[in-house]
């Protein structure tokens, strides 16, 4: 055996396949069902991770032509099957394997504690889901890619509707399925246009041919790709499936979908927009992505703030982060089309690093939310609270994830945003006023989004985990999450911290793929400076040795610790919370989730279209002492995108469908008539198109 590639691929694929079978036929006792399947899937993820790391070390592209009976093995045929993994695919395979491994580990405990039926089939479908994700990033041909892509969609649909006893879950699943098919159609359109235009059915064969295509042709391909991959990634206004599907799915599934699957949209767009179409990029592509990304970032985070459902909040936050990633992709495309490949590399690096980071901390947050909501039995934050005492580890891990996603040092979220800020700041070297002003505005949007994200996550953590339990169910929680769940989350948080303190561990392996994508010599991010500082293109911008910053932070914390721990005359004691001299404070006096969001909802009232309804306490009987006992305050939030964009669209499709269905009379002579008519029309067309020839 000359290379381990084939061995690792075979091991990973067969382990995932075996996991699927084992899960579906598992007839063990119910609480233990699915464990064998999860174990096999872990083996598959491990093999996939090793393979991805090996590919990144080795560099270059590894391909394998599959000659199955009935398929032509050559690259020129539409049905060619070819496994091909390049640097870009390796990056995303690594993300899938790392996040997948941690989520599978956590699933061992999650399945036992929080899933109550059909554990075996859930575990088996997880294995199949990971297999389809692996195939998406290793497909070398249009045919194999579309099979893997649609497989990923279908399997994730079955995962979303796992708890299909509830009407809401079925509705969310259907919604997701429909949106995914629209996305699939757009992806297929884009790839078919590419294949027809370049005459090649392999991705590797397309890239050299694109320079012959006209601007209209490449523009159409790019638009279709943005529509298709943007829907999968959750780009506004195509994100509407995301806040429906994520809360409906079991939490380990949400973790995988948000952490890995939506990144497949990013992968697809980088594949089509950079790897294949990169040399032909027009300026407007970059600005389109930048505007869409900035809109997503703001719409996502503003909606996240308003949510009361913890998992819906996390889903909207995914929309925000995908927005940030697309902003970085847009910046990279602008630089690329302006002929500044080094800066394009910086922005693309920010996009890939942030994709990776978001995969880590969002799956961590979904697992933490799953532990909390599973223990209490509701996703409504107003009914959680006080979980930090019975669940200290889960709370701490969720807090770490909240710090990371709020882009605070020393976590990985900060590094990704820092890189993007540097890329935006470098706009002054372009000399184009439009670019400079747009990028500056984008920096303002990015800063606002990260400030708002911190707001949303102080709310999410504080309301769900701190203070008094808000309900009896929350007060009844006695135990922390199972050990495997805590282990999986700790692994993810550890990686968030590691990549925050030593980002070159990931930036190094990323710099070669990025250099290949933008066609510029790689910035050396592998070694960093003597203290691990990140270099910058030219002498512009700022430098960052985040390891030193982390050391300073540790030093500062040490000083504070010494100040606080110096021997004291009086020992610490505890007492009740101050309540202005009333009875002991209760959970009803705490700030609620909606109360916490109120200042922001009031400031952005135009965005939320929030309509407050107040009912004053009725009559004197409603009052007791100084507190009014009766009285309601309700806030109604409209969700305009669904009502004003998608409902009219779907009604239009329905109306069109019912018109067309009138053609279907059912009588056989009518259909014969259609055939004759079609034949005549075709003959006439042929005559016109064929010109003089018979």
């Amino acid at each position: 055996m000359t290379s381990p590639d084939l061995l690792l691929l075979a091991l990973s694929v067969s382990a995932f396949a075996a996991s699927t079978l084992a899960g579906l036929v598992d007839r063990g006792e119910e609480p233990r069902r699915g464990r064998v399947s999860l174990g096999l899937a872990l083996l598959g993820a491990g093999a996939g991770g090793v393979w991805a790391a090996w590919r990144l070390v080795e560099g270059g592209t590894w391909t394998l032509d599959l000659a199955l009976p009935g398929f032509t093995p050559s690259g020129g045929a539409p049905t060619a099957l070819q496994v091909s993994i390049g640097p870009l695919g390796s990056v995303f395979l690594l993300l899938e394997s790392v996040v997948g491994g941690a989520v599978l580990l956590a699933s061992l405990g999650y399945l036992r504690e929080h899933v109550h039926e059909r554990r075996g089939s859930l575990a088996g479908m997880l294995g199949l889901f990971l297999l389809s994700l692996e195939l998406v990033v290793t497909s070398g041909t249009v045919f194999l890619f579309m099979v893997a892509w649609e497989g990923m969609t279908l399997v994730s649909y079955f995962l979303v509707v796992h708890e299909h006893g509830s009407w809401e879950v079925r509705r969310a699943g259907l919604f997701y399925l429909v949106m995914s098919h629209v996305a699939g159609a757009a992806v297929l359109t884009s790839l078919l246009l590419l294949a027809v235009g370049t005459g090649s059915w392999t991705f590797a064969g397309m890239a050299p041919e694109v320079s012959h295509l006209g601007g209209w042709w490449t523009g159409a391909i790019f638009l279709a790709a943005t529509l298709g991959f943007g829907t999968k990634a959750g780009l506004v206004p195509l994100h509407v499936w995301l806040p429906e599907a994520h809360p409906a799915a079991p939490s380990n599934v949400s973790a995988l979908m948000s952490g890995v699957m939506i990144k497949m949209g990013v992968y697809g767009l980088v594949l089509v927009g950079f790897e294949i179409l990169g040399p032909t990029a027009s300026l407007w592509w970059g600005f389109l992505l930048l505007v869409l990304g900035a809109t997503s970032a703001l719409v996502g985070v503003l909606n996240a703030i308003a949510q009361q459902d913890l998992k819906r909040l996390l889903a909207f936050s995914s929309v925000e982060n995908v927005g940030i990633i697309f902003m970085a992709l847009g910046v990279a495309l602008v630089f690329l089309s302006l002929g500044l490949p080094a800066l394009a590399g910086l922005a693309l690096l920010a996009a890939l690093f942030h994709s990776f980071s978001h995969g880590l901390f969002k799956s961590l947050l979904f697992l933490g939310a799953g532990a909390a909501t599973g223990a209490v039995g509701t996703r409504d934050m107003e009914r959680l609270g006080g979980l930090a005492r019975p669940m200290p580890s889960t709370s701490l891990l969720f807090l770490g994830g909240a710090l990371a996603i709020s882009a605070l040092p020393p976590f990985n979220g900060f590094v990704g945003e820092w890189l993007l800020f540097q890329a935006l700041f470098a706009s002054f070297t372009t000399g184009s006023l439009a670019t400079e002003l747009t990028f500056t505005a984008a920096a303002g949007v990015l800063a606002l989004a990260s400030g708002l994200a911190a707001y949303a996550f102080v709310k999410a953590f504080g309301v769900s985990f701190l203070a008094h339990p808000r309900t009896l169910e929350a007060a009844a929680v006695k135990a922390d999450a199972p050990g495997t769940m805590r282990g999986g989350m700790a692994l993810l948080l550890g990686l968030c911290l590691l990549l925050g303190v030593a980002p070159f561990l990931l930036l190094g392996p990323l710099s070669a793929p990025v250099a290949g994508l933008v066609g510029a010599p790689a910035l050396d991010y592998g070694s960093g400076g003597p203290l691990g500082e990140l270099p910058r293109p030219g002498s512009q911008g700022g430098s960052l040795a985040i390891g030193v910053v982390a050391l300073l932070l540790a030093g500062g914390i040490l000083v504070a610790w010494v100040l606080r721990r110096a021997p004291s005359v009086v020992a610490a004691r505890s007492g009740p919370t101050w309540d202005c001299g009333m009875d002991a404070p209760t959970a009803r006096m705490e700030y609620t989730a909606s109360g916490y969001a109120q200042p922001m909802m009031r400031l952005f009232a135009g965005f939320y279209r929030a309509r407050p309804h107040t009912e004053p306490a009725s009559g004197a009987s409603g009052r007791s002492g100084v507190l009014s006992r009766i009285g309601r305050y309700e806030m109604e939030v409209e969700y305009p995108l669904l009502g004003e964009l998608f409902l009219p669209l779907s009604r239009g499709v329905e109306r069109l469908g019912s018109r067309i269905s009138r053609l279907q009379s059912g009588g056989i002579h009518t259909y014969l008539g259609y055939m004759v008519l079609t034949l005549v029309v075709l003959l006439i067309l042929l005559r016109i198109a064929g010109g003089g020839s018979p």
Partner: protein
Amino acid sequence: MSGWGEAQTAALLLSEVLLALGLGPLLIGLVRRVKSRSQRRTGPGLLQPYRDLAKQLGKGTVYSETSSGLTRYSTWIGFGALLAAVPFVPWFFLPSPIGFSGDLIVLVGLLALSRFMTAVTALDAGSTFGGMGSTRDMWLGALFEPTFLLVIFAWGAPSGSTQASAIVLHGASLGLTHLSPALLLASAAFAVLLLAETGRLPVDNPATHLELTMVHEAMVLELGGRDLALIDWGKSVRFLLLLELFVAVLLPWGDALSLGLASLALALGLLVAKLFGASLLLGNLETRVAKWRLFRVGDLAVLSWVLALGSISLTYLVGVG
């Protein structure tokens, strides 16, 4: 780097941290003094903040029965983040000893970390006031984060760097032409941000005793003893950091570039003079304005965005050198 160079770096770093810790409470005392004098009150002495800190540090702590372990640790982390931010502000010696390791964006991140920890702690005890302060403080933080980033871009564009040292050195090399309209606009935006970020009037009243109007004070209502000492001290360090950044960029002259005794003394003297001047102005401003309604502060934030964007547009229209 030679051993001497490392010892020099460590000594400079230590002196900056000690300066920040030592000078912060004095400036708070000075602002209070100016306020009380211009209101025809005697007021507390200049050193009162130090006495308060000493008293709080000597006291025992009372924790709420509702609170979790978080409250026992979060104040250290918040205070530590502020200390870690010290080297990223220009003090008296340039270039900053380990300034290469981070820029002003790191400063924004560390200040935000400290804010996040305080806001989370405020929710831990389950008090209504804590929630009120927490949501308001995060609200202000989110609104002024764009201002901070835009000001960094505006200040940084002429020198092409987001590093504080580089910005100040470039400004000093320009002579009086440094005080361009673009710089003044950006600095005006930063002045608004300074009032909001450090909880001064008209955004928050640091001397208030009415819980319903509080922002910062409401957040820390449940803390006492050493935890409160760390929070108060941290607040004065945050105030000093932002004020020093403001005066250093606006008036970038006089920093020591070598380790001569005379130049160091001159630089330290100028630093204290600039800070005192700014504190006098701030104290005067605070006697002249009343606290604004919280939701009017949104207008203030938007004003600061516009000022900063205007500054950047001017820079780019004129062209970067």
